[in-house]
């Protein structure tokens, strides 16, 4: 029986802005177990990053209203004191970010910054911290760690910086690693290496990984569980095999259709028309309905709940499972035809 590390229950994050309330996250629930990678997918502004940042309380809480629970090994992170939370950050729960160019302090040596992470928890002498840092730099595949230890971030390449960030996140053998679009800012070849590293780290350290991305291809590679988010709410959750074999939400279909595939040459990409909604004025009913080619009667009035409608995993779409299966089959067929 896998150990549940992180359980998010009905998380809502609303930002008060001069233009109105931005409902960045509006009711998200999921669990993360040890040894599992959860991929959270969605377009920019779908609330996936805010979900994770809120879990570690790294958003500005003065302007945000947060409700719900983020249970980390049974403790609600949203209710901890700052000091209690500090003791968890970087020790049991670590995070790496999208832009490794901006995430390391430009004026401190990379080694010193990782040392600092080591010494933030527990009693480490300078020498011990350095030893641990070098161990980690080596583990994440930084060549000649002793030399690189003394380098500044601008002397690292993008991929190396992300490796250094991962090293920093791992110094205390955390239980959970949250990776917020860790490969978005990197070259494609480096992306694969970083994903592989995260995968390896998950195996070696036996941790839970939350991987946020807008790239379903990335999720297909490394995740066991997938959550698709749209306009601050999950629209489909399932295991990777379930979601990729039988996606049940038109938005997921749209995402899948917009991935280029090398083996299907000439096949046209089908973009999702329109753009994500303003998070201040989220459309009534199903937030996706203005962009959905299959919308019908109740879609602009009733918001579909996230539940299993008989398709095997929870989704939030008014269509019946039979209709969904048929529509998806048609889409697949027409795409394949267009290719030949």
């Amino acid at each position, binding site marked *: 029986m896998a150990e549940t590390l992180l359980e998010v229950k009905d998380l809502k994050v609303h930002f008060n802005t001069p233009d109105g309330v931005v409902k960045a996250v509006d009711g998200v629930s999921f669990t993360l177990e040890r040894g599992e990678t959860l991929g959270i997918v969605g377009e920019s502004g779908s609330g996936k990053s805010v979900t994770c940042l809120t879990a570690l309380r790294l958003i500005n809480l003065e302007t945000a209203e947060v409700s719900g629970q983020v249970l980390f090994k049974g403790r609600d992170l949203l209710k901890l004191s700052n000091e209690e939370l*500090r003791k968890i950050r970087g020790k049991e729960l*670590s995070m790496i*970010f999208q832009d490794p160019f*901006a*995430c390391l302090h*430009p004026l401190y040596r990379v080694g010193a910054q990782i040392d*600092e*992470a080591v010494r933030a928890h527990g009693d480490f002498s300078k020498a011990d911290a350095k030893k641990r840092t070098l161990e980690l730099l080596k583990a994440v595949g930084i060549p000649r760690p002793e030399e690189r230890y003394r380098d*500044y971030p*601008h002397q690292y390449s993008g991929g190396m910086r992300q490796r250094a960030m991962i090293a920093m996140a791992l110094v205390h053998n955390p239980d959970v690693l949250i990776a917020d679009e860790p490969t978005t800012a990197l070259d494609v070849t480096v992306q694969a290496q970083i994903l592989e590293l995260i995968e390896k780290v998950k195996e070696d350290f036996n941790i839970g990984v939350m991987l946020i991305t807008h790239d379903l291809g990335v999720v297909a590679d490394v995740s066991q569980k997938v959550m698709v988010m749209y306009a601050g709410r999950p629209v489909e959750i399932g295991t990777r095999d379930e979601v990729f074999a039988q996606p049940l939400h038109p938005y997921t279909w749209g995402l899948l259709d917009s991935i280029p595939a090398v083996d299907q040459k000439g096949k046209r990409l089908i973009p999702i028309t329109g753009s994500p909604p303003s998070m201040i004025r989220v459309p009534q009913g199903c937030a996706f309905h203005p962009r959905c080619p299959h919308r019908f009667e109740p879609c602009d009035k009733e918001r579909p709940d996230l539940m299993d409608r008989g398709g095997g995993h929870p989704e939030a779409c008014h269509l019946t499972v039979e209709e969904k299966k048929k529509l998806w089959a048609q889409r697949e067929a027409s795409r394949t035809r267009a290719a030949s």
Partner: protein
Amino acid sequence: MGRYIVRRLLYVFLVVLVITLATFLIFFVMPPGDPVTAFSGRTPTPQILHAVEKQFGFDKPLYVQYGKFVKNIFFGDEFGWPGFGYSYVTRSPVREEIFGRIGVTLQLAVGAAIMWVIVGVSIGIVSALNRRKLVDRAAMGFALFGVSAPTFAVGLAALYIFWQQFHLLPGTGYIPLSENAGEFFSHMILPWSVLALSFAAFYARMVRGNLLEALGEDYIRTARAKGLSEKKVIGKHGLRASLTPIVTIFGLDFSLLLGGAVLTERVFNLPGLGALVVQSVARSDLPVILATTVIASLFVTVMTLVVDIIYGFLDPRVRYT
């Protein structure tokens, strides 16, 4: 690094040379006109005019005069090194006049700099950490006042209040530190404060802005995410990033002041370089004008070099090429 410094020193030399040349030309080409008539008394005879011309060297071509001026700076003149000649007005060596006054200006600038850095930086930090709260608004109100209030007005008002009205402090003037330390400080405290006010205000705004910007950076989020205390996140990562650019500005501000804090010295009757500048310009006293210009431009150019070198140590991304 060595080559870099040598090259930069060469630039310093060139810049100072160009500035003196410009000053020199402005003096002769622009009004108030012929210096010879100015120094020949009320009823100059041709003999007197000729004698004055000869005495000051005005009978020689401009480039000879300029050449002699430059040569004297480098190799000294009859009064020692560096040679700045003698004042047309007082007929005393400019060198002594300048060296006597640099000390006063230096004391004024150093005291004020200590005050404005401490006050400005602390206000900036407090303001940034209490953004949009009452403390911040009050501090920024003060900063706006400090930046916009003219030095002479604040100086006179301060003198009126602390000297005339409440007799808390002695009046204007300068007492050397070696003569009487207490008197020195009681005479300097007002000039320091008045001079520091506008800088402190400016630095407070700058530090506040820099710190707020730094605290929004991704590496601050990283620092929090790795479990550092807020004290370290702000006090180390935030401040390091926000104070480093201040070093540059400080170097330039400070070096400008060394050329003479004209208004402050004037208001508080301090015998510094600034007072000398005003005096010499008013009297068309070319050697003094030139000497003060050389000194001031030297301070600024050398300080710029020093700042650039220091910055290279503070910011590893800077490379000397």
